[in-house]
């Protein structure tokens, strides 16, 4: 099992290959549909004018994401009233919903790692080669176990998106995942998709 510390160096990224199990440690930021849409519309494509705390949040997340990791996760969080936040359950959510945004977001912020489940498509794979970066697959549903690797909730941005959609900044230790898309252009998901399609065609031809 390979240890990967965040921020991740280019050298470490290049050494990672599809199928490698890893344990991640360091600071990461959660983000899913609302966060990706917000980042792209407000700052990357700039089709929407920043309002309220937009600029300030942008300035604060930039250094966190530079060389860093974004985690597709909508956690269950306790301590919402007292603001003593604690992650109770924090497994990955389906990543494909971010496919239209992810590549641009990776390039803009220099994000080296994307964690989620279900894998992503060709646009993100291309960004993984360019930036360079990798896609880490966490075990879907392993929410209590992953929450144990979260040492601390450092802060939260955009809580007005709702608890699942907010951008939570968390410090993790030994967060378990598997590399399923690497910086060398390989994707386990594309491979399994095509092999299973041939297997299906075989089974359908039998009938």
């Amino acid at each position, binding site marked *: 099992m390979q240890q990967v510390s965040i921020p991740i160096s280019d050298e470490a990224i290049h050494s990672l290959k599809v199928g490698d199990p890893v344990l991640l440690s360091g600071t990461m930021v959660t983000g899913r549909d609302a966060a990706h849409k917000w980042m792209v519309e407000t700052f990357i494509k700039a089709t929407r004018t920043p309002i309220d705390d937009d600029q300030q949040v942008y300035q604060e997340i930039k250094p966190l994401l530079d060389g860093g990791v974004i985690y597709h996760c*909508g956690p269950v*969080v306790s301590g919402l009233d007292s603001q003593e936040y604690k992650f109770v359950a924090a497994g990955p959510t389906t990543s494909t919903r971010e496919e239209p945004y992810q590549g641009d977001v990776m390039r803009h912020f220099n994000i080296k790692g994307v964690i989620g489940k279900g894998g992503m498509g060709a646009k993100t794979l291309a960004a993984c080669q360019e930036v360079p970066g990798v896609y880490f697959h966490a075990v879907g549903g*392993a*929410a209590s176990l992953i929450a144990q690797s979260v040492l601390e909730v450092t802060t939260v941005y955009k809580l007005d998106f709702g608890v*699942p959609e907010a951008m939570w900044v968390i410090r993790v230790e030994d967060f378990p995942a598997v590399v399923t898309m690497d910086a060398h252009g390989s994707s386990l998901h594309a491979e*399994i998709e095509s092999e299973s399609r041939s297997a299906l065609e075989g089974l359908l031809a039998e009938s």
Partner: protein
Amino acid sequence: MQDLTEPILELIRLTATNLPPDVEEGLRDALQQEEPGFAARGALETILKNVDMARENSTPICQDTGTPIFYVNYPEGWSTRRMREQIKSAVAQATDKSYLRPNAVDSISGVNSGDNIGDEHFPTIHFEEIEGDELQIDLMLKGGGCENVGAQYSLPNSELGAGRDLAGVRNVALDAVQKAQGKGCAPGILGIAIGGDRGSSFVASKEVLLRQLDDSNPNPEMNDLEQQLTEESNQLGIGPMGFGGKTTVLGTKITSKHRLPASYFVSVSYMCWAYRRRQMVVKNDQVSYQ
């Protein structure tokens, strides 16, 4: 009428944090199928560790605690209006206690209600008056990842060579499993309804998932198809989480509904490995859980 708010709160806690024994058994069997050292086996090991941890700490097995779907079978004399109020109040309390994640989002404004109370379908409650003196409430928590890979087919489907018979059902169901890949958090469980209209068909495909994982279908033809679909799905090589491997599906449950002569729907509800369903029974004011 007895106030069921507290007992229902416990039903929710149990369902969200404690995976039923038949499902855990299925996952342990799956683990034996996968080769040591492969990502598929690692994923199942992580899943089983997580199941233990969630049970011990009384924390949600998965952070997506899904749509809470209640099936209430009640004897004569119970008020469905009051039971609905009590269910809603228990759901809001369970959210406050972090057994459930706030999941009810207004589709137009995008606003999350914060307490899992939405319109009349959120939480979803099915009421049915039954004979006898026992009140049964089944709760199923169905997450979004697996709900999104569910599918409905209108047969015949020439692309998949699927006619209006069980052989056709088999073809479209396998297509649904292939399209789902690992995205519904495989290994999954298939709930399949044949017939009905589009709406009743999907409802039935979920309800059939209340069956025990290791039971058999009383209809021998459907029973055979259940076995066949599980075996053939596992030949697709998708595996746990879509990492590749031998266990893509843990089981298949099929039901049939009357249909119009003109229609032949097949609905596939995909349930993830976090197959959370529990039952509570009230008899002579005594509450028990299964």
